């Protein structure tokens, strides 16, 4: 037996080019992959313990914790790859809640056959993005699944952030009648960029994903003394889902002006072509901000300084209808009539009619 074992070839993990099943088992192959990934993230010190031990953020009054699973198919589209998205998605959830982001945990689910060179590209993007924002990837987990159980690469990230005396936790209940609603950019870019990428060349558009970290926007609003009532990044479900939820939880009516909502032309085209709801198109770097009406012009000036040139006011907050138990999101149409917005019943699908 021993002799036979000695004569068997020893697998060589230095030469494979794809993720293999062996990478997923507690083994030499896995240790090497994890060490590689840490290097690709750009870590100077490699972590060898199961739990990360990190310093308490300075001035923290309480902590925030957000988690977000990311799938992107294909995993790289103009303006966005899944690595950048995985960091930015959770960071944006953190910063719009008011907190400062600090630490990131990464769970990566890889499918057998995913190219290691692509994994390197994704990890390097994650490291670069994290450094740009100023957060640290401190722990992680990697699993490998058979080819029929995954889509190449899926990444879940968890971000720990801190609230301080000035960065307080924001709640939708802080939204008050009289407040104005600002969006930080043109809507629908991520949605179209994904659709165009999935068309396998059948559709062509110069549009790129709007994916970007909103930490600078949030910081400049707080530092500039803007009384931010509430913020929400307009990801899944887009503006529609965002405002319907905020109206409901704040108990106010949010009235949006159809004429003032900035949509990207490519998003308009895609929605008209497929019959999708333009207001429900997802974004990955655009948020809605509710502020004191007197500070709206100043807030817009500040947002424009940090790379949100299209920031604009799109609506205002009114008291809810007398006798009504909950708030509503309302779209004031160009005809001067008002339409109550409701959530989409399910996913958006291609319509014939």
């Amino acid at each position, binding site marked *: 037996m021993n002799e036979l074992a000695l004569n068997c070839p020893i697998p060589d993990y230095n030469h494979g080019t794809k993720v293999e099943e062996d990478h997923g088992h507690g083994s030499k192959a896995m240790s090497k992959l994890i060490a590689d990934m840490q290097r690709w993230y750009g870590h100077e010190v490699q972590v060898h313990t199961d739990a990360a031990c990190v310093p308490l953020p300075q001035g923290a009054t309480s902590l925030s914790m957000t988690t977000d699973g990311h799938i992107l198919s294909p995993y790289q589209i103009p303006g966005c790859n899944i690595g950048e998205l995985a960091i930015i998605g959770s960071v944006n959830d953190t910063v719009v809640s008011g907190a400062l982001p600090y630490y990131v945990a990464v769970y990566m689910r890889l499918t057998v056959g995913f190219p290691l060179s692509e994994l390197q590209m994704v990890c390097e993007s994650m490291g670069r993005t994290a450094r740009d924002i100023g957060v640290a990837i401190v722990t992680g987990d990697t699993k490998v699944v058979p080819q029929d159980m995954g889509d190449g690469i899926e990444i879940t990230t968890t971000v720990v952030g801190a609230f301080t005396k000035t960065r307080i936790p924001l709640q939708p209940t802080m939204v008050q009648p009289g407040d104005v609603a600002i969006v930080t950019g043109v809507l629908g870019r991520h949605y179209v960029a994904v659709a165009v990428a999935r068309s396998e060349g059948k559709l062509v558009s110069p549009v790129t994903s709007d994916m970007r970290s909103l930490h600078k926007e949030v910081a400049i609003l707080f530092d500039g003394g803007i009384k931010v009532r509430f913020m929400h990044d307009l990801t899944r479900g887009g503006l529609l889902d965002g405002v319907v939820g905020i109206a409901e939880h704040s108990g106010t009516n949010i009235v949006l002006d159809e004429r003032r909502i900035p949509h990207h*032309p490519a998003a308009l085209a895609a929605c008209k072509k497929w*019959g999708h709801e333009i207001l429900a198109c997802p974004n990955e770097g655009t948020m809605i901000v509710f502020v004191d009406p007197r500070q709206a012009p100043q807030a817009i000036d500040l947002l424009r300084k940090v790379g949100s040139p299209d920031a604009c006011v799109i609506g205002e907050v009114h008291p809810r209808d007398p006798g009504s138990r909950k708030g509503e999101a309302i779209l004031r149409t160009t005809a001067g009539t008002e339409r109550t917005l409701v959530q989409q019943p399910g996913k958006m*699908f291609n319509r014939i009619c």
Partner: protein
Amino acid sequence: MCQAIAGKITRITEYVGDRPVRGTVQYMGPEGIEQEVSLAFVPEVAEGNYVLVHVGLPLQIITEQEALEKEEWRRKISRMIVDDRGNETSYLRSEEPIKLLIAEIRRLATREYTIMEVCGGQTEIIDCYKFNKLLEGRVKLVPGPGCPVCVTTANYIDLSIDLACREQVVVAAFGDIMHTPGSYGMSLARAIAERNAKVVEVDSPDAALFYALRHPDVQVVYFAIGFETTSAPNALTLYEAVTKKVSNFSMLVTQVMVPPALRLLLSTPDFHVDGFLGAGHVCSVMGYHEYHPIARKYRVPIVVTGFEPVDLLLGVYQCVRMLEEGRVGVENAYPRIVTEEGNVEAQRLIKKMFRHEDCEWNGFGVVPESGLRIRPRYKTFDALHRFGVTLGPSVRDPRCKLTDIYLNKCTPRDCPEFGTSCTPACQVGPGMGGEGPCKSAYKTFILREEAL
């Protein structure tokens, strides 16, 4: 019915002789989206022309109409439409012409008229913009049977599910028909989860054929629903499948036509409306010559109408004007897209591939000569023939009031199931799906009601 978008032909990429056959079309300007399309139905097209595109196929060249307009305010609208065509939605949804048209209609109408819009796409715009409120006391707009998803009978959906559950069969369908319930409430979308049905969502018949070419090991059944508008692209795809002898592609066809439905409505006792808004995109293919005898026989005005808010109000305005002047007949309020004769090229191909047959409409029963089915000579591409299957009976939930809604006997909100047991997420009847009148009403009314 019939989602369609205007686009500009930026390049012609392929000719056969002098005839352009393929080109690229750009939607919403250079920042928008570009797509390569077949130019089979617009052989006179030139680079720089604007076209109307339905499910990825240009159906008509958009033309300038300004010179034809007599009144100053209409010239203005028409000029703005022309100026802004690449971006046509922006002006056609803007405040100024909407307000102008509402005021004109209110000024013109001396009593309240009931006008039926035939198309579900128009119902959606009317509900979104609350035109019935703005025109209150002058015009009441009521929805007609113009959603291809809603009029598709349950047995076709049952059969599509049955096929999708078979070994080595994939059904290619539009998203809206995927969510419409068949008998006992089962939809294609639900069957994916509950019965392991294999379904792919497509945005054009062309995409279904493309899927078949890429997956030669499975039989692909394209679920071909639609009015005349969609029959044109369906005919082209069938023609290509026949020519290329694509042996793993077939079509489950239930296509319907508007004129027989209008005749049926108008000959129903107790049915009364003062006029009709004709479905503009159906007419982009078929023209409106078929409507003259209907208008004469039943003494109603019919106005061919478009889909943007301004288009729609223009249709209402012309209909009211005809009613006030006591005229019956057909007028065209969508001349930039629709001509009297329609798209002759498309009609020829539809006629070549499909024949008229009696067809059952959901909520109406059998409407004579109202269906377009595959001709016997192409029957190997008919899913019914290929799989040797027949349609079962349609079982619809008896609570559904869609028939009465189409006959203008009640509105969706009069139905006790509306918004309670029947919602877009859980449909009792098909009116709550696609662009059905119930879904349209739900989107605009239900939340406010709940809140009270």
